[in-house]
């Protein structure tokens, strides 16, 4: 059995091989996968953590700001996919995780609570594990939270590390979420995010994908409330014969919403990458603004990059913009470094540091930043 993930919201030529990603032999994963213990640090007053069953998890998701059921756009062949609480990897992956029958971890911040210290959420997959973890992050009205989730394993380990995170931000809520993946280089890694934003809610999402062999990352952020904001920074390194398949969808439904997504990546060796980034202005999103930007540094002649930046629009009064740059280091940059005695290899290392550093610096915990530095020294 294969699982289709990261489906493009509006399909294009099949021969390009970019309409969706496929996780092969998922039935094998389903047989082997189990839950995994996670640890949380920094749970202050007003922040609670507990494990809940499937029915309670569903009740919480159903109570989230209403997501309009997806529709078929008149005159267009299939556009959008039906999912009650939409996520980036999509419905098949959601069903796969549900099929495991695992508990959901629920982290809640009570209305009006604004703990200052970040919550650190650590998942260690050790070696050769095949494990899945799912959580709901629920931030109450006018509350805020800083949450750092990191996934690690033994350096040379292989296995399957599956994550499913659903975020509910009530009106006026704010979440600064960082996800840092530092798995061993043999891992199949899946990380799915779905988020529902109320009026004035603010989601800042930093994601670092540094390890693993085959990585599938998806995020769908439903900006339902007026004036909700979504800011994301994703950085990745893909090496050897590794691959990364990324989908980010900012679905702007409320009035005067803002989205700003940036993606920085480095491809080494014979690495392959597919990225799909969508700004989706729905009817009613008047006054909204969306930006996305992608930079890919290809450091090997055997690397392969595929990019798909979509802007979908059914509202007049909006402003959307996309920019991307793909290739090697520009000659003028190399010349600049050369005039200062820095050779091409050193210049490339500096540019890699700069790309990863842009996201690393946004992670508000010195210990995690230090571990990222150690991981990069060890692996790159």
């Amino acid at each position: 059995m294969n699982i289709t993930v990261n489906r493009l919201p509006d399909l294009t030529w099949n021969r390009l091989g970019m309409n969706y990603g496929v996780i092969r032999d998922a039935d094998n994963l389903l047989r082997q996968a189990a839950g995994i213990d996670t640890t949380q640090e920094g749970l202050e007053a007003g922040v609670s953590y507990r494990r809940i069953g499937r029915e309670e998890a569903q009740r919480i998701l159903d109570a989230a700001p209403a997501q309009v059921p997806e529709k078929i756009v008149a005159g267009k062949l299939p556009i959008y996919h039906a999912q009650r609480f939409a996520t980036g990897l999509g419905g098949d992956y959601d069903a796969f995780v549900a099929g495991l029958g695992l508990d959901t971890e629920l982290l809640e911040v009570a209305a009006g609570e604004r703990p200052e210290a970040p919550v650190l959420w650590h998942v260690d997959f050790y070696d050769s594990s095949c494990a899945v973890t799912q959580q709901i992050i629920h931030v109450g009205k006018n509350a805020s939270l800083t949450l750092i989730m990191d996934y690690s394993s033994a350096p040379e380990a292989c296995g399957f590390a599956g994550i499913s995170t659903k975020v509910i931000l009530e009106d006026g809520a704010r979440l600064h979420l960082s996800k840092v993946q530092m798995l061993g280089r043999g891992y199949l890694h899946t990380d799915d995010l779905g988020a529902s934003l109320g009026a004035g809610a603010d989601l800042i999402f930093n994601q670092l994908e540094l390890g693993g062999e085959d990585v599938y990352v998806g995020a769908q952020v439903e900006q339902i409330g007026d004036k909700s904001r979504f800011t994301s920074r994703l950085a990745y390194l893909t090496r050897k014969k590794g691959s990364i398949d990324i989908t980010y969808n900012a679905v702007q439904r409320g009035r005067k919403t803002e989205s700003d997504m940036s993606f920085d990546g480095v491809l080494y060796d014979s690495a392959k990458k597919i990225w799909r980034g969508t700004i989706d202005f729905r009817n009613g999103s008047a006054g909204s603004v969306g930006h996305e930007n992608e930079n890919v540094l290809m450091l090997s002649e055997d690397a392969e990059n595929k990019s798909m930046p979509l802007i979908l629009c059914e509202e007049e009064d909006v402003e959307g913009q996309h920019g991307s740059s793909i290739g090697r280091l520009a000659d003028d940059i190399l010349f600049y470094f050369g005039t200062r005695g820095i050779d091409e290899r050193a210049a490339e290392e500096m540019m890699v540091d700069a790309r990863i550093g842009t996201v690393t610096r946004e992670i508000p915990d010195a210990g995690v930043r230090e571990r990222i530095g150690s991981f990069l020294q060890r692996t790159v």
Partner: protein
Amino acid sequence: MAKAKIQEVDRSLYDFKDDESHGFYRMEEGLTADIVGQISDEKHDPDWMREWRLYCLDLYNQMSVPDWGPSIEGLDMDRISSYVRSKSDMKGDWKEVPDEIKNTFEKLGIPQAERESLAGVGAQYDSELVYHNLQEDVAKQGVVYTGFEEAVTGEYSDMVKEYFMKLVPPTDHKFAALHGAVWSGGSFVYVPKGVHVEIPLQSYFRLNAKGAGQFEHTLIIVDEGADLHFIEGCSAPKWNVANLHAGCVELYVKKNARLRYSTIENWSKNMYNLNTKRALVEEGGRMEWVSGSFGSHVSYLYPTTILKGDHSHCEFTGITFAGKGQNLDTGAKMIHIGKDTSSFIDTKSISKSGGISTYRSAVVIEKSAENAKASVSCASLMLDSKSRSDTIPAMTVKTNKADVGHEAKIGRISDEAVFYLMSRGISESEARAMIVSGFANPVSKELPLEYAAEMNNLIRLEMENG
């Protein structure tokens, strides 16, 4: 700021119909081996072409319609006649063309354009060419511009056989296979080595018949160091049933040659425009596409350029204007194979009154395309919230020795710009029309003056205050 009411375009300029009851031959509707055989009989196809058509029909029957893009559910091939012939054979003098057909082209301004600014003209009415002419001094340079069917059976038959549907194979997609089975009419152009054709050639396609298809084939070969500008125009009256256009354009740009291919597409709003255009560019060659898409109910149109030769180059400049009842899915594809190749795509799209405009593209940099450079710029303008505008660009890069850039923008007419113009005594509707014309300017400035004027006229009509 109060908005001006935007009216639908006045298409009366193009929406006149000729009576089909006298002297027209119309094949029965549907698509069968018998019908395809009848087309071969009509055209006195050589054996290889007769077999080719049946092979393509078989492919067509095996292939599926696309599972992406605009819906074509309203297109029923059992209600389309693949071949309609007027009572005229092809003529080389407008005086010999029957009056009602000549009047059609007079209304469209084709004979006048030929007199004033063209080196040669081909005029197709329904399934057949009715007029074809090339200026004598251009012909003396060895330039060949003839009906495609003449080329298939005449002195260029070997050349046609070598190139026909090699660039767009019938296996490419369902409507390429359909074209291979029922193609009719079209033009063949050959420009010899080193010849620069100083003024453009033009083919104009008019589909008058109700519930019919037009499947013309255009094959252009611009030999080494030669230069040509070819213009394609098309229109049809509006019927209350679906019409189909599934033409095919194959362009060969040889070493250091240059070809500019300009199109103003203004089919009626009952037309399914499923057209395929492709160019192959050899070393140092230069391909330029200028494309304006204004008509059709549904369009799938993505001119493709294969930059095979080292140092070859392509530019695509396009505009799409989707109004009420239109779903126009347009864009371009660039395939970089040679070293030091470069491409530039610059498109504009405008959506209004419930129209759907989709920009779709693919830039592929193959591993062999060292030092390739590709740049894509697309801008969309939404004129109301009943409409839709999507941007779906794909980029595949298989070498790190390449630079690929992309930028896309979507937005509306700025209130500040309208206010600025109004403060200088310009009415709101004029101000909005001026801004839209300015938005389209990168395309219109690439067209010959009279075609730029036609395009601006279409935009002005779209924007006119009710």
